[in-house]
């Protein structure tokens, strides 16, 4: 697929991917700002800012974004991650200027009306409370808090409730002005358009925007973990849960391709971004065989969190009724130990590579998924991050998978959260 890349004078990187036989257009803007750029006391501010950017400003009144996209039959949304924040609209390609105008206004002219900031406080708290209803969220929040003591991955993008209750408009608005600038963003267009014409429209919409001084690079890095960390949550819930996280390097690291195959051998592959996977449940992997087929767990998954900074590889299991947490943990230990001891056989490696290959195609399903994949790549390094990674995965040998298991799946560098479900809550 042809992709045209250009950077405007104000620093905005533009990635255009024309798809001749589609009438749809997906417009994405990714900002290099996430919860990793927050400080204690203002956790959740990046996500709150994201909410505020649907409320107008500049040429857009309150409710205008909603109306403009709705009339076109379009879809829109935004996502706040630890490392980046993304906004998108998918609309008929003939309405490109509408999307460009919205994103251009959003970049520098959001209103942050004090009344609207206050109204949104309860909405973001409600979003957090909805997540708190799920034991899996509590386990995940505990795990990241346990594994990171210094780095802002300690908290999740939704932030802590006490911060959401006390944050004021001014720091939120400063956060916005600091990070929402053309030289801290990439604009991605995927769909039915002529690249030369599209580029002209992009220039008209975005060239007038002034850049900001580039944000300071994050100087915090997590010190090496000295010894296993454990936490036991005893709370009402339907099933015991176990989550184990090992420190892994950043997404750009040379070991990432081998870790992808390690994750796949261990727990199956569902693509670089989970949105495309739907409810697909991989079954041809070691942990499914060892835990689900053997009736010790009803569900198990492996998440390789690919991030800007060193992150986690997480194994999560939902335990079958009556099975002790110790037993499931022991089985996971045994499977990890096998990987550290012997390289996976040729069939297993080829099956893992085939899954990664196929998912690279499934994630190209339509303009929205392509836009999301390119944007996530830009958030982490570059628009073609996924393609380059796939090429590197093809070259990984079985021994390398064993080696990265030995390097990273180390007991002293792991954190373990066990959720003990209390009975009689329903």
């Amino acid at each position, binding site marked *: 697929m042809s992709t045209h890349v250009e950077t405007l004078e104000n620093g905005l990187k533009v990635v255009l991917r024309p798809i001749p*036989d*589609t009438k*749809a257009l*997906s417009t994405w803007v990714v900002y290099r700002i996430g919860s990793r750029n927050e400080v204690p006391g203002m956790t959740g501010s990046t996500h709150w800012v994201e909410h505020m950017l649907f409320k107008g400003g500049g040429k857009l009144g309150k409710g205008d974004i*909603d*109306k403009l*996209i*709705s*009339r*076109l*039959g*379009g*879809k829109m949304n935004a996502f706040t991650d630890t490392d980046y924040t993304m906004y998108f609209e*998918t*609309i*008929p390609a003939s309405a490109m200027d509408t999307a460009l105008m919205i994103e251009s206004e959003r970049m520098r002219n959001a209103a942050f009306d004090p009344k609207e900031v*206050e*109204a*949104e406080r*309860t*909405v*973001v*708290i*409600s*979003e957090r*409370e*909805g997540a*708190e*209803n799920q*034991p899996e969220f509590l386990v995940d929040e505990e795990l990241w808090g346990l594994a990171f003591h210094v780095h802002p991955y300690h908290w999740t993008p939704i932030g802590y409730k006490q911060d959401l209750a006390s944050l004021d408009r001014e720091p939120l608005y400063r956060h916005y002005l600091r990070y929402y600038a053309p030289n801290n963003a990439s604009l991605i267009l995927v769909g039915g358009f002529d690249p030369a014409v599209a580029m002209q429209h992009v220039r008209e919409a975005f060239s007038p925007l002034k850049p900001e001084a580039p944000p300071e690079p994050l100087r915090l890095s997590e010190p090496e973990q000295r010894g296993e960390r454990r936490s036991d949550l005893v709370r009402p*819930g*339907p*099933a015991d849960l176990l989550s184990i996280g090992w420190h892994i390097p950043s997404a750009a690291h040379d070991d990432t391709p081998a870790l992808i195959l390690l994750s796949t051998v261990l727990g*199956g592959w569902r693509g670089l971004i989970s949105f495309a996977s739907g*409810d*697909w*449940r*991989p*079954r*041809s992997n070691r942990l*499914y065989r060892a835990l689900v*087929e053997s*009736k010790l767990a*009803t569900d198990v998954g492996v998440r390789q969190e690919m991030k800007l900074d060193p992150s986690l590889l997480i194994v999560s299991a939902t335990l*079958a*009724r009556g099975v002790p947490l110790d037993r499931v943990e022991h089985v996971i230990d045994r499977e990890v130990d096998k990987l550290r001891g012997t390289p996976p056989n040729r*069939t297993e490696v080829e*099956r893992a590579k*085939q899954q990664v*290959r*196929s998912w690279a*195609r*499934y994630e*190209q*399903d*339509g*303009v*929205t998924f392509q836009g999301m994949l390119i944007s996530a790549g830009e958030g982490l390094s570059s628009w073609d991050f996924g393609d380059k990674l796939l090429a590197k995965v093809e070259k990984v040998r079985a021994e390398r998978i064993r080696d990265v298991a030995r390097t990273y799946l180390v007991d002293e560098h792991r954190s373990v959260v066990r959720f003990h479900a209390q009975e009689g*809550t*329903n």
Partner: protein
Amino acid sequence: MLGNGAVLISYSLPSNPFVAFRGSIPAGVAAEGDAHGVAEFASRLLLSGTRRHEAAKLADRLEGIGATLEFHNGEEVLGFNGRCTRDSLRETVRILVECLSEPTFPQREIDRVRGELLNDLRIEADDTHSRAAHELARFVFPNDHPYGRDPKGGADRVRRIRRRDMVDFHESHVGPEGLILAVTGDVDRDLVEKGIAEPLSRLDADAEGIPAIPPPPPHKPRRATIPMPHKSQADIAIGGPAVSRRHADYYALNLANLLFGRIGLYGRLGRNLRDEQGLAYYAFTGLDARTAGGMWSLSAGVNPANLEKATRSIRAELDRLQTDPFHADEIRDGKDNQIGSLIVSLERNAEVASELHQMEYYGLGMNFLERYADIVRELEEDRVRQVSMKYFTADGSSMVVAGPVGRTRFSL
């Protein structure tokens, strides 16, 4: 249509570098009669082993070619969907046909799935949204109607279902009669004939025929509170009977539903509850129109301290439909949205396959997408207002609140 009665629809989208498919057989909850839970249990075992291959071997074959295949039980049908590449299509369809025609329901897998079902029931029982939504469906479709009962059948049934029950159900209901398979993406005529039609034709036609789905019994509005003191947020579910997919009111009601609780950030409802009052992260409506009937529903997740305020606001919005019905500009925006969404909602292989499947399943005709814009344009404004007044009423609705609410009863 193939010789054995199965219907195959394909649409070529060569710019998408893979194939997506979606299919169904009328072997869902409605086909199980009094044997509650059998359809769901059996559907979960279709990848658990065939006469030729054990479960692990099936998984190795599928994932070895990078394909996906999943089965889902629904109120009306056994659904299946998957993805594969052009090169692996023939093998994927062979596996699909093998799973449909030769499942062995091995006892070891039955025991495993029984445990999974019981865990799923416990997880759903701990989920405020699931609890409220299931109870609402039970109220709107009473007397164990297939649309209202838990497809899993409840814990007691899950414990009692035996292998023989599933074998009998499968033999009676799973075959090519009523089977629809929609395929899109990187396919052409030759591939469809050799890679899909040929293996699909091997399904034997010896099932009992398509079961009729009875019309839902009359709905008597009810209220319920489900205390879940350990939760942070409460879920409100409100709803009532609506129409079937082929009912004359369907398109007007679909537009009314869009305006009331879907368009943009959840229509009139979202504007009030989320945007103006900040009471909820989500507050939206849904219209579920099926073969023999339908339901409209409203869902909102709110802090327990705001429950009364939220229910009062929902009541006010429902009443407003009677006193301040949709304005001409609202209806115009809604029509524009529905017509424009044709392009946007069909941008993915999987979405096209799903739409083609629906067109065949509900007998809408293969020219439905060409006709759709005119159907929407021709809707009369007053008709849209009338159906919203008729169906979206507070007094005609049931309401369930699940969450940290004590035993307080909430009125609408």
